[in-house]
């Protein structure tokens, strides 16, 4: 806390550079919505931010139990940040279960704001407490602010004619009002949102508004003034910003790719967490000519996308790991047909149903090798929520210009997490040039023009003639075909040629060189992929600020790998790969480049924190220093 700013009427609040708040409550308490509104207000205020929504797989687990706890963590700051934060400074606990489940995440000495009304016998028992933690020593060392939120919300709603039971449902807005006051958030955006969201339910709107205002006023009247701070605007690059989550960004990227290529977007999909929001989002955008097809199963979803792609659409299928497993055979067909296809895998904890609502990044090996036969496909991975937009365009670009299925990897953390995104200028987005064959490309022995569907160009790509093109009728299929003519061929030599051609044409797709962030002359190189970018970047910044040297390379293209990667890896003494799996990229790097890449693994259904990676890097740097050079 360094200085003060005018942050509201009669408020002179001291400034802090960042704060991490965790809203936790029962699934039915509306914690995701509360976090989301707080985030939007902070984004519009001008903070940099990152969020981590965490919710159970059940829609309504038994109320009040540990299984039903839903949490939303948001990190807001006056400077550039890359993660939702290591440990919250503030825990908002709407019930005993939320306190019990999330207390351990709080920083020592952190602030707990709890709904006093719920700390009674029944809820304490449901959470497994044999005593009331408010009265015991459990919370010693923390700053505890007890607020009878339920009572105060009901009081605020009494005169509106809202039934007490309904008023109870507005208590999350009380919490939001209180937190908005404590962190000097602008309140207009939230009040406007309530107005619009509940336009056709005036009583609900009135209750939520009353609860929000009551929470806001409570800070003042309860003399919590010493708690009030402000987190000032972050110096972001000039531009127009919006707060975006990964699944929305990915959906918009697919729409953009359709516009940039001039091909209609066809999405074949089957509902699966955490990918379903992409189906929802794209279903809303028929004005872009987007066709969404909710298929009877995962296989039909990819099959239909292949059919649409064959017909000249941008064919896309979106799913999570279990769905990719089911689509494997059809993806192999697309490899053999050499048709464009984008397969989006929003990874989640596995195997099997695993942790559907929790994040993991353990599908890399499946993406690389999860089809029978030699069946190479390009693989991309998004690194932040907003980056999902760019990577969706890049996936479509590779698919359409190299006529191949492409796998785009995201994960539950990116899908639901959000960050401020500086909107690109549409005019700056490069077009995707798609060429379809319209003429014969070969002459037969009688001197007549014929069309060979597997006659390759200089990049080893085959021509695509869409059905409907006069004279170019031809047949393609999953059976091995003769290079050139495309006719069914069981020839041993031809099969070997085709296996090599399929491998080579994917391996030679140009991808950007890997770039080193940090110290080129460090001993230790951190190699990351996907959503670990935020935590690794945060850790590397801290280590370098502390005066130690470390380098970071983040891979967005996992197949083929950047051409300069081997040389880069070999130029460092040690290579460490933080991954949300047991070491899948590290194994690929060892196999491809014969380097001793070590894995830093985390498979807890949660993303790495910067602190965890920072700790591991420091340990390794200490050892390297001990070994000497």
């Amino acid at each position, binding site marked *: 806390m360094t200085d003060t700013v005018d942050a509201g009427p009669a408020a002179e609040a001291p400034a802090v550079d960042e704060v991490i708040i965790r809203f936790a409550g029962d699934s039915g308490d509306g914690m995701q919505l509360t976090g989301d509104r707080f985030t939007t207000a902070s*984004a*519009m205020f*001008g903070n940099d931010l990152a969020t981590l929504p965490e919710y159970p797989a059940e829609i309504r687990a038994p109320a009040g139990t540990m299984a039903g706890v839903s949490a939303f963590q948001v990190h807001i700051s006056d400077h550039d940040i890359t993660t939702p934060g290591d440990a919250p400074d503030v825990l908002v606990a709407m019930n005993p279960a939320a306190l019990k489940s999330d207390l351990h995440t709080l920083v020592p000495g952190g602030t707990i704001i709890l709904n006093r009304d719920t700390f009674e016998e029944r809820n304490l028992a449901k959470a497994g407490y044999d005593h009331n933690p408010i009265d015991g020593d459990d919370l010693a060392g923390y700053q505890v602010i007890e607020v009878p939120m339920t009572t105060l919300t009901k009081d605020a709603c009494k005169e509106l004619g809202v039934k007490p039971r309904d008023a109870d449902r507005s208590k999350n807005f009380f919490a939001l009002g209180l937190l908005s006051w404590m962190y000097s958030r602008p309140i207009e955006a939230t009040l406007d949102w309530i107005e619009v969201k509940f336009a056709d339910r005036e009583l609900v709107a009135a209750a939520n508004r009353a609860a929000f205002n009551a929470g806001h006023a409570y800070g003042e009247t309860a003399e919590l003034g010493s708690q009030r701070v402000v987190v000032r*605007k972050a110096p972001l690059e*000039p*531009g127009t*910003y*919006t*707060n975006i989550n990964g699944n*929305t960004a990915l959906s*918009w990227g697919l*729409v953009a790719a359709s516009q940039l290529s*001039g*091909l*209609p977007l*066809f999405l074949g999909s089957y509902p699966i967490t955490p990918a379903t929001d992409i189906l929802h989002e794209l279903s809303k*955008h*028929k*004005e*872009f*000519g987007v*066709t969404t*097809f909710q*298929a*009877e199963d995962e*296989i*039909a979803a990819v*099959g*239909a996308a*292949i*059919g*649409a*792609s*064959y*017909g*000249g*659409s941008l*064919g896309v299928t979106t799913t999570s790991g279990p769905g990719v497993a089911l689509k494997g*055979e*059809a993806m*192999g*067909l697309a490899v053999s047909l050499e048709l464009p296809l984008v397969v989006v895998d929003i990874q989640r904890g596995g195997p099997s149903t695993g942790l559907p609502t929790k994040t993991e990044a353990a599908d890399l090996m499946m993406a690389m090798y999860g089809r029978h036969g030699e069946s190479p496909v390009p693989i991309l991975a998004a690194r932040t929520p907003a980056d999902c937009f760019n990577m969706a365009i890049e996936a479509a670009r590779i698919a359409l210009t190299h006529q191949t299925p492409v796998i785009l990897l995201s994960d539950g953390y990116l899908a639901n997490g959000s960050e401020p995104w*500086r*909107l*690109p200028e*549409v005019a700056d987005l490069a077009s995707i040039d*798609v060429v*379809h064959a*319209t003429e014969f490309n070969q002459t037969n022995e009688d001197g007549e023009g014929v069309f060979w569907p597997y006659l390759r160009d200089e990049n080893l790509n085959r021509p695509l003639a*869409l*059905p*409907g093109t006069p004279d170019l*009728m*031809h*047949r*393609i*299929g*999953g*059976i091995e075909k003769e290079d050139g003519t495309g*006719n069914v061929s069981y020839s041993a030599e031809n099969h070997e040629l085709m296996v090599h051609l399929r491998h080579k044409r994917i391996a030679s797709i140009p991808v950007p060189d890997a770039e080193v962030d940090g110290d080129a002359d460090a001993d230790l190189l951190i190699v990351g992929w996907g959503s670990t970018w935020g935590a690794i970047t945060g850790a590397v910044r801290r280590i370098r600020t502390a005066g130690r040297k470390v380098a970071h390379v983040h891979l967005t293209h996992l197949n083929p790998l950047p051409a300069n990667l081997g040389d880069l890896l070999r130029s460092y003494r040690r290579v460490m790969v933080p991954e949300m799996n047991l070491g899948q990229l590290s194994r690929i790097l060892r196999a491809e480049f014969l380097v001793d890449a070590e894995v830093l693994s985390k498979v807890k259904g949660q993303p790495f924190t910067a602190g965890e990676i920072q700790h591991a890097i420091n340990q390794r740097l200490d050892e390297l220093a001990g070994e000497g050079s």
Partner: protein
Amino acid sequence: MTDVLDAGANREADEVPATTRADWSSDQEVRWCPGCGDYSILTAMQLLLPELKARREKTVFISGIGCAARFPYYMNTYGVHTIHGRAPAVATGLAMARPDLDVWVIGGDGDMLSIGGNHLIHALRRNINLNILLFNNQIYGLTKGQFSPTSQKGKVTKSSPVGLVARPFNPISVALGAEATFVARTHDMDRQHMQDTFRRAYEHEGSAFVEVLQNCNVFNDGVFSTITKKDVRDDMLIELNHGQPILFGSEKQYGVALAPEGVVIVDVAKLGIENVMVHDETIRNPSTAFSLSRIAKTPATPTPIGVFRAIDRDEFSSSVAAQIQEVQAQLGKGDLGDLLRSQPTWEV
């Protein structure tokens, strides 16, 4: 967008050049076993399409895996030989993306009723514009003789050496259970009947399902010969003709009548022609057609062929396209810049 994607609408306007069977035959050597029923189905198709004044470049055959699924390779049209069971799914995406095309789906009993059963019933449920031909030979041929989901109970095959335990699907009943809007049966011994049936399927708006009884002379020879051979046909095939009394037998001495327990075979002389059922393929409730599909318990008893059901219902892909057009008429074509600014934004 390419010209091909835009050109679909003009199809009716242009003169269709006359074609012959040769124009519809690809240059590939046909590789079914000599004597296979598939040959006559292929011939029927290659003879029919010129008559329909179809365009080769607008015609696509999509197949799964199995002997039947090799069909597209022999047609000089566009074609995709996909993977086992998934032809209706791939064809659905194509038909949605390209309503200007005539899309035919070819598969066998294993392909469409076993591994791909789910895709078949959902294609039929949606009523998407596909002509689906199921070549039913009651056996797995390409894997050399295992029972299929249409094999009769007790059937001895390589995978049921002491007799098949399970009961078979009746493909017509399955299609009617999915409330398909067009359901028909024909057989490989009668080219004219095949052509007539395929023509009706082609002309139908929506999913058209045709079961073709097809002989596998290597692994299941003669399984339909008790009903389809020329000398028994009159007594064993019950031809369904819309608006006509359902009669069969060399002297039309047998008929079909509605009894309390369902549809039954009757002696016309005893019951009187006025009590014989008049076939109406347009009844919206599929129960009557379903009842007809249950007359034959095995391929050794009189079996109806022809069109069981043909009704009008909204076609899926055009309904999906209509929703898109409605939204575009209402909101105009989407603008990417507007989309990016559709959530709250702020300036820095």
